[in-house]
């Protein structure tokens, strides 16, 4: 299965990158931009052992995110997978 993970700063956490980019865009002529948040996008292919149910696979990916891919102290994550 193909997995796509979106990692974003937690709501309320300072996002210095987002704030800086938000300030920079008007200087290039783009008005009306607000709420810039910068995160990460991770793609991976996951081939679990035979007999793993879909629910178990989701649980594994959730654990991958929680333990390594995201920093749960300051980041939220969401993922989608397709069996393709």
């Amino acid at each position, binding site marked *: 299965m193909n997995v796509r993970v979106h990692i974003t700063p*937690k709501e*309320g956490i*300072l*996002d210095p990158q987002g704030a800086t980019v938000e300030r920079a865009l008007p200087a290039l002529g783009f008005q009306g931009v607000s709420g810039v948040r910068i995160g990460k996008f991770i793609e991976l292919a996951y081939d679990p052992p035979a007999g793993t149910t879909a629910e178990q696979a989701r649980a594994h990916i959730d654990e991958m995110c929680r333990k390594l891919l995201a920093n*749960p*102290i300051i980041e939220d994550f969401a993922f989608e997978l397709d069996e393709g």
Partner: protein
Amino acid sequence: MSQRATFEAAVTLGLTADEYARICEIQGGEPTYVELAIYSLMWSEHCSYKHSRPILGRFPTSGPRILQGPGENAGIIDVGDGWAVAMKVESHNHPSAVEPFQGAATGVGGIVRDIFTMGARPCVSMDSLRFGELTEPRQRFLLDGVVGGIAHYGNCLGIPTVGGEIYFEPSYEGNCLVNAMAAGMIRTDGIVRAIASGVGNHVVLIGSKTGRDGIGGASVLASQEFDETLEEKRPSVQVGDPFTEKKLIEACLELIHRKLVVSMQDLGAAGLTSSSSEMASKGTVGLDIHADRVPLREADMEPWEIMISESQERMLAIVTEEQLADVREVCERWDLDCSVIGQVTDTKMLRIHWHGERVANIPARRLADESPVIRTPSVKPDYIVDEPVAVSDAAYPQPTDLGAALALLLAAPNIASKRWAWEQYDYIVQANTVQIPGSDAAVLRIKDSPRGIAFSNDCNGRHCYLDPYRGAKAAVAEAARNLACAGALPVAVTDCLNFGNPEKGEIYWQFEQAVEGIAEACEALDTPVVSGNVSFYNESFGQAIYPTPMIGMLGVYDDVGVHIDDAFKDEGDVIVLLGAEAGWMDGSEYQKVAYGKVEGRVPDVDLRLEVELQGKLRAAIEARLLKSAHDCAEGGLAVALAEGAIASGVTGGTAFADPDTPQAREGGAGRWLGAEVDLGSASIVTGAAGRPDLALFGEAPTRVIVTVAPELLGPLEAVLGDLPHRVVGRVTGADLRCTMDGEELFTVPVSELHSAYESLPQRLA
């Protein structure tokens, strides 16, 4: 918003019944919820120092060079030619244990603000770090995060991180220590203090928008031990933005140099609350703050949240009407928010308004100065012993291979090279660094002047555990000795006192003892304490850390060109041991690493001998008699000799400032200078025990090894006079060889010692 708060609310915020009663008395009735939140923060241990204030008065804090002692954002010391150094250290222990990268980063950010808020350009960062043993994955995670956070923030600010220390002991496993020290340069006539004045002047907030960062954060975390609810404390973590702080440094220094502010204060623990109340209280004025005029990062914040938010990278300035337009212009040029959020009044009250409604009305002085003072009855712990250990062959079997024992010590994380850490720091930005990390002290020049400054960080937590008085005294002595080894004159101390729960008698005893030891040593060495920080409640599940009173010390040079480092330089140089002869097992790294024990009574510092040794060492360096000098610390004499040999061939030291030295031409790696050392007779060197391993690895204060060209040995001895000293060998060959009583103890190639010494990265893989 102005609802009256109840006693239950007070308890939730961590106040005691006594404290609540006192608040009601000051306020003339039940406080509003905003008032209660403000008191709970200001009267927390971290902000009010309620357990430590009565004891800290013991420190010597003044002297002819001291322009500013404790009580301001930083201490300030005159270093000559119209220049002064601002210096302070602060702990960020609890936040770093929760989120190490951001905890350490914001620790650096906070201490740097304390420096430039006084008008000093920050020029030095140093960090003293402690963790549990590296065999635990979590400790490796913490080390990695903390070093990464310091690097991220300090490098971005363009402040060189020139030194520090890193120690690993089981006692820090649940409570890592992150003590961030910073210093800055300022002209003696350019100092700005955090005193609000001028009724009608504007209160201006500059820098980042205010969010919910750290609400209940640093202050509350620092007033509680960790327990199972650690996980729930996570949302309180602040994220640092060093880019904004860099802009803040430039903007604030411009404001101060152009005299566009009356005073300035940075927002640290307890945010707007502590800054505004401290400024008002110092100035004996009042402040009206309109919380609704504070630029917010998050909508729908309540006034109490705005007042206690610990959002980083914010400064508070008092500005006259005439100055205001220029202040706005400077902030706009640096793309920084600048908002008038209040004014100075003559009411002596801190008044908070929310959309026209007054939600807090607190006497500023009483809030800042009248927190309860608590002296816990102190109790000497049972584990303290009054006698050194008996070093018997049964309890301490002698090693068969002393060379292997030396390699084991050099590879021990407490001794091994910390290059892995300091190569992540920019230690050379600002073009002032003369001595990079790895030697006894960091040395910087002052541009357009022959003068220089030097810094050291020292504390041996294990020694302080075994005897807090002797250990703390030794920490001060060691910090000064390290500066003396570099040729600098020690002049001032900033201290970071890390202890467990002060409500416990044994911990309070440790604290009192340590303060006494520091005070005596500072008096003898003439190094007043100009600033500092106390961090209590470093305990997890009832287990306290070793008492760890970390000493940061400043030294000065009339001529920075005399500085030397610890590396052996030339074949044939004579090695001389200065000071104490005997080394002890008690509390030594050897006792821990080879025998797995921490026990006994550590030796006391002979302050009279220490002062004499440091004075004569410095005189010898100023007379340019010495090639190198190195303090004997963990691992004793043998490790100090090994380090001198290892440094002879390693790239990156000041030996390579001159590209024509043999070491530089070789590029360093592989070209070592060893030594032949004769320890003399065991009975002289080690006293009654007479063991060669104690002669090699036993530890004692007031010991330095120096190297000198053979033809200068005579002049050196003339300078030393009757200071105890002994020629122990010479720099030669590529091996380190030690003999005693005519017998060889070991011969090891320096290249092998180097491999052991540089093995820390392998423990982190």
